[in-house]
């Protein structure tokens, strides 16, 4: 049975509030990898420009002003220039965030990078299509091991569900799973948008994030992966499109509605298949709007859940891990968590975890 030994989510270094992006509700924060001075100067109108590679090294002092108000997730320590590729925008790349997350996940798993035998990545906003995100992270960690992407559905459900079906002899002692997305880099006119309307909703919806998880079939972890499933629910229209060239195209209401519906269905499937009716089980889901986890949990008699949207917005494959980190702090051996999410496309599914 696959074991989850440690995981960590890293968020972008620039905290944006309602003062910056009027559509963000008062008291909430979104995290961007774009530097504040770059945003104020350009408003990210040219979404490709923030990915330009040039020679200037970002100032560490700017980055270190990031708020640390989300205790369960890491606001990255940007002290080491080596962890940032030099760019005029001072932008953290998805790989930068993934490496930060990986470092913390390895610490949580109490292993070193050299013990990793496989790296599997997933990235919705890569700076390079080739090499893959998994290969870029492995490169930064100095690893000479098989690395590739198993993408489209995040660590949960896709990567965990897949690896849970592997022959134990085929999985190295430790594998590192990665999901990374920096959607604010793909939003033009991020700052100063109207308080209401589609543009405001788009600007206020996302945070940039990466999650890393260390798994093993040979070594006991904090969580056992009891079950997992994933599937494609094709959509005639795509309410969220991350094109290679253009800014993100996004219709918040249909997207949020689809995520809630699909996560609800996945949760129901997890309960039915694993006979969890009436069991002590919690829900960690990728919220794509406020109150979503509570509604899904209530609709399926799940008594505990963790919210993520009001804290960090929508973070693609990291959202459910933001929620899981909250639940993990108060979980006890034997507790079960249904982790579910729906990613654009829609790939959806669930993982059932049990605290060891």
């Amino acid at each position, binding site marked *: 049975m696959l074991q989850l030994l440690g995981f960590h989510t890293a968020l972008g270094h620039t905290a944006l509030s309602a003062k910056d992006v009027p559509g963000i509700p008062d008291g909430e924060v979104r995290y961007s990898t774009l530097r504040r001075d770059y945003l104020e100067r350009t408003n990210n109108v040219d979404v*490709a420009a923030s*990915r330009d590679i040039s020679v200037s090294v970002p100032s560490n002092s700017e980055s270190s002003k990031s708020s640390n108000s989300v205790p369960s997730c890491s606001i990255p320590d940007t002290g080491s220039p080596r962890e940032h590729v030099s760019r005029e925008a001072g932008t953290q790349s998805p790989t930068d965030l993934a490496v930060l997350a990986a470092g913390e996940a390895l610490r949580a798993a109490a292993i070193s990078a050299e013990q990793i035998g496989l*790296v599997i990545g997933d*990235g*919705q*906003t*890569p*700076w*390079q*299509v*080739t*090499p*893959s995100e*998994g*290969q*870029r*992270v*492995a*490169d930064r960690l*100095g*690893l*000479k*091991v*098989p*690395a*590739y*992407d*198993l*993408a*489209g*559905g995040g660590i949960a459900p*896709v990567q965990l569900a*897949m690896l849970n*079906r*592997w*022959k134990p*002899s*085929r*999985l190295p002692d430790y594998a590192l799973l990665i999901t990374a997305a920096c959607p604010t880099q793909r939003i033009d006119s991020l700052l100063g948008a109207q308080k209401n309307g589609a543009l405001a909703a788009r600007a206020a919806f996302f945070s940039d994030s990466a999650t890393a998880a260390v798994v093993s079939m040979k070594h006991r972890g904090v969580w056992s992966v009891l079950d997992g499933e*994933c*599937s*494609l*629910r*094709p*959509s005639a229209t*795509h309410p*969220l*499109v*991350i*094109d*290679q*060239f253009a800014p993100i195209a996004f219709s918040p209401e249909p997207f949020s509605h689809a995520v809630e519906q699909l996560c609800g269905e996945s949760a129901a499937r997890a309960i039915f298949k694993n006979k969890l009716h009436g069991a002590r089980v919690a829900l960690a889901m990728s919220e794509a709007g406020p109150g979503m986890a509570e509604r899904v949990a209530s609709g399926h008699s799940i008594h505990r859940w963790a919210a993520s949207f009001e804290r960090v917005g929508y973070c693609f494959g990291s959202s459910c891990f933001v929620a899981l980190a909250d639940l993990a702090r108060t979980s006890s051996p034997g507790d079960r968590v249904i982790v579910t999410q729906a*990613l*654009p*496309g*829609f*790939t959806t599914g669930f993982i059932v975890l049990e605290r060891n």
Partner: protein
Amino acid sequence: MAEITGEKNRGGNEIGASVGGDGGMLDAPKSRPELSILGMGYAHPTNVITNQLLEELEVGTTAQWITEKIGIQERLSSLPIDYIKRTRNQAPQEARSVATDTPTTLAVRAVKMALERAHLKAGDVGMVVVNCCTPLSTAPSESTRIATELGISVPTYDVFTACPVFALHMDFLANFESSTLPDYILCISSAVLTQQVNYNDRSDGAIWGDGAGAWIVSPRKPGKLRVLDSLFQADPTRSQAVLVETAGHFKQDGRAVRDFSVRQTVRLVKRMEEAFKLDWTKDIFIGHQANLTMLRQITGNREIPDSNHWHNVTKIGNQAGAGAPIVLAMHWDKIHSGQRIAVAVVGAGLSWGSVLLEAI
């Protein structure tokens, strides 16, 4: 990682000095995967980029040089020829608006051929894995687009490493407890790299072609080809040697990649030779379709006769991950029972792998 100072061919001559360490030891064959390939298909666009055209672009190359150095005569592109002449494809975003094909359209055509050969319908497929280094979007993913276009709603994933993907997909599927896999898995590699080539660059323009390959795999249904062995490895510390920038052009360290490709392919072939006692009077070799000159260095080193070396790069160009499976698909009707086919592929990542097949 061990330094390898030169690979000797069977005649004892070195084929080239080492450029850095290679991938260390190749794993010994594991227990035989229980996989079969039931059908294969391919698709290409129809615009032909000739060596003469590349010479006429006046970027410092000649048709003769290209033929002599890389052995490619033509490549098939989704870009109209007059567009290439007019713009040299300086703006990849514009290429999309004029291209005659997308990775999705090529993939769908390749899949239809594979399904027909496997005597299956799209609805029989239980899982889809896709490799695409030129996706239209990352959300929805290319695998989602292709599955939606085919009208199937099964688990779909992008399993991605660019060029060595035939080995990756087969080795990836071999990892699973076979009881957890559906009867039929659709594997696809599709790319339109000519849309991300800078045709002011004399090297890159000569290399790439567009294409899609598809193959149907089963863990339990018999097929024309049985998988005897699969391997996938990587050295990501050298991953920046081959780049496809999102919304940008392809770039590579040509010399380092060329040396790596030849040496690593030779090592992969030697591993299969030793473990499975390959006989090049009967068995077939398919390499990564990067360029013919490199392939001939490999076949020369391993003394593989031309008749047992299948390739298509001379007329289609480097089709990235689709290259090797397309070669196999193009020879599908020529495969005869008892034949073994050794596929050794290398590429971006840097990654490499092999698949040994036996025709039933």
